[in-house]
């Protein structure tokens, strides 16, 4: 199938530029990138329904979202591969990298194969599973890392359950290093952060909520980096959200360790005060931080110190959220809302579009060893066409996710996905 998109502003994260041009898609890949908006090529073999005049809107490489929770197996009423796939397509996310913190955890090749089969049947976007690092995510015995990689696991993580036993972790990392596996860590000192619902400080004390010092993140990262130095494993920190952790990350990169880091859309756009009167939809893990921290991590994305932005899509039903704040479940959905929400940083002048898509598409693709994430000839045609200026009022009940737990309900945003392509096929088109 051939598709021609003309008159589009092409967001190229590799070249860090936005240019007016056109793109020809053939056989699932980008066959040609033109530097003129309406190239004079023979379009006889492109049927009219496969031609798009973008009208000056923006075309970027599709988002690669690392750390998405899909609640299969175990809690399909919260989210299935079908619903998450539709939500992803509507949000310009063309590759989902899923978390293994399901019930039961994805810790055997058999479960992983089940998940991959379900995903391929149900989701219109690419789904790449991560597997648990330890059996049952219990932090005691390593999983069958080799078999899991053969079955298609792209990375290994126990998600928000930190492996407390450093002996277990060092062995798992050493074994993983031999196989070239990527470990995704959650940098938190587990004792300090146990039971915390907020970041310590004035707000937490006013509200009387259990809190964790932001220093717990740095301690967790320091430990993990020392383990990386010891074992030589490839390591990605899922979320870096505090100022204090940034120098440790910077040092590790400068010393040449194979370390990258991500941050969530929520920590880039919200701060601890957004919780206001115990609004549980704003309860995420790690908890929202002070405004200084938010600004520092935005700056770190800009400089490239933080490599990846993710939604950390975590579906929760109403029952898990309509509880007193301490008891309420953590997490927010984000597959569909990430692009419009992050446009806040574009409109405020904090991050330009190539920088955003470097963190949303190019870097996560590279880290997962994928060819996508680029807007160049020969790259997979995973693309998102969007209008960064279109005003919308977010209505959570219109989200395609089964769960509607977004902190941005009723938010006035600018930015709308117009069409999403996965391997050259249109999987979502806004009406």
């Amino acid at each position, binding site marked *: 199938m051939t598709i021609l998109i003309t008159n589009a502003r092409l967001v190229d994260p590799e070249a860090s530029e936005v240019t007016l041009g056109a793109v020809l898609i053939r056989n699932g890949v980008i066959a040609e990138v033109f530097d003129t908006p309406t190239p004079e090529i023979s379009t006889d073999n492109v049927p009219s329904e496969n031609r798009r005049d973008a009208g000056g809107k923006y075309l970027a490489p599709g988002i690669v979202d690392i750390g998405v929770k899909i609640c299969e197996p175990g809690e399909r009423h919260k989210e299935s591969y079908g619903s998450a796939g539709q939500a992803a397509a509507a949000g310009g996310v063309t590759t989902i990298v899923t978390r293994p913190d399901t019930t039961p955890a994805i810790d055997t090749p058999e479960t992983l194969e089940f998940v991959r089969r379900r995903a391929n049947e149900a989701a219109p976007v690419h789904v790449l599973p991560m597997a648990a690092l330890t059996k049952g995510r219990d932090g005691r015995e390593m999983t069958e890392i080799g078999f899991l990689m053969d079955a298609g696991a792209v990375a290994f993580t126990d998600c928000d359950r930190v492996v407390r036993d450093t002996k277990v972790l060092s062995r798992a990392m050493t074994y993983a290093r031999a196989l070239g596996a990527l470990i995704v860590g959650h940098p938190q000192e587990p004792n300090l952060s146990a039971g915390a619902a907020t970041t*310590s*400080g*004035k*707000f*937490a*004390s*006013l*509200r*009387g*909520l259990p*809190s964790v*010092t932001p220093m717990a993140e740095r301690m967790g990262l320091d430990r993990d980096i020392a383990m990386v130095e010891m074992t030589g494993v490839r390591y990605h920190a899922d979320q870096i959200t505090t100022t204090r952790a940034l120098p440790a990350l910077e040092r590790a990169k400068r010393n040449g360790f194979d370390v990258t880091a991500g941050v969530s859309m929520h920590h880039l756009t919200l701060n601890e005060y957004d919780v206001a*009167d*115990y609004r549980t939809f704003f309860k995420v893990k790690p908890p929202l931080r002070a405004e200084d921290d938010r600004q520092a991590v935005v700056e770190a994305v800009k400089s490239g110190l933080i490599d990846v932005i993710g939604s950390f899509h975590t579906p929760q039903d109403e*029952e898990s959220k*309509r*509880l*007193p*704040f*301490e*008891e309420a479940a953590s997490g927010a959905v984000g597959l569909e809302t990430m692009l419009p929400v992050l446009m806040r940083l574009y409109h405020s002048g904090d991050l330009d579009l190539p920088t955003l898509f470097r963190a949303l598409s190019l870097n996560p693709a590279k880290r997962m060893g994928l060819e996508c994430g680029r807007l160049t000839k020969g790259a997979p045609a995973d693309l998102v066409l969007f209008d960064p200026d279109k005003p919308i009022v977010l209505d959570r009940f219109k989200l395609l996710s089964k769960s509607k737990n977004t902190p941005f309900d009723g938010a006035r945003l600018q930015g709308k996905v117009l069409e999403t392509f996965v391997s050259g096929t249109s999987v979502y088109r806004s009406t």
Partner: protein
Amino acid sequence: MRFDQRHLLGIEPLRPDEITTLLDLSDQYADRNRKRTPSTDVLAGMTQINMFFENSTRTQASFELAGKRLGADVMNMAMQASSVKKGETLIDTALTLNAMHPDLLVVRHPHSGAVDLLSQKVNCAVLNAGDGKHEHPTQALLDALTIRRAKGRLHRLSIAICGDISHSRVARSNILLLGKMENRVRLVGPPTLMPSGIGEFGVEVFEDMREGLKDVDVVMMLRLQKERMDGGFIPSEREYYHRYGLDAEKLSHAKEDAIIMHPGPMNRGVEIDGTLADDINRSVIQEQVEMGVAVRMAAMDLLARSLRERREAQTESVMV
């Protein structure tokens, strides 16, 4: 006189003039309570439900007595032995109760913000009788009334709050109230029992009790809440008493006429010396209990008034 609140969830939303209104009315009830016939009928025909999700004898008794003296039908629900144990969520409990059409709901809950959550789901007036480590507004109001009656004013006083600030909703409500009324608030206690970010609360923090008590008008002791201790906040009870327990020597650093307060129940010999607590010249602890009933009567009276006004406005709009 104005009081614009629909609920009494905390001190934070109250304006200083609303606090004064509440205390003025409490004063009247306090005087009335000392007479032989303290009862009135201002809440006649109204139903008050006390829901305590956490153990309480004193506060629950105080709210119950206050409601009865105002002529309300009072019902106590022991939530610990109820459907909550069977897995019912707080919101379902609230909706069930709401269907019984109470007028006043008095709630204590072990989680911060739980009373706030409940108030969003019911049509009646909700009074917070203590939520987690968040607020305990009627305690702060009764403390304020006790101070005002003992000192003749509730501004430009120097007040030391001593002990386990971190786990105390009483401390939070008092810091907010005394700050709003323009007093100097000092917090005294070991750093392990101070909440984070305390420097931004507009208070002075002391780790040395003698320094902290120097020339204060009011010494407010807090209960060392053993049941809240995860362990390891202080080395031992005896070291705590030695460094932070109120005794005659430490009290001598305060003003000569400084009063001693305690929200109860007291741990004699842990945070306060027994004889000092009983010293009728210094201790106003019994008066605090007395003021508790008066303040709760005033709070329920004012909330019932605004509830009636709202209901009348609704009826009128229906008739039009």
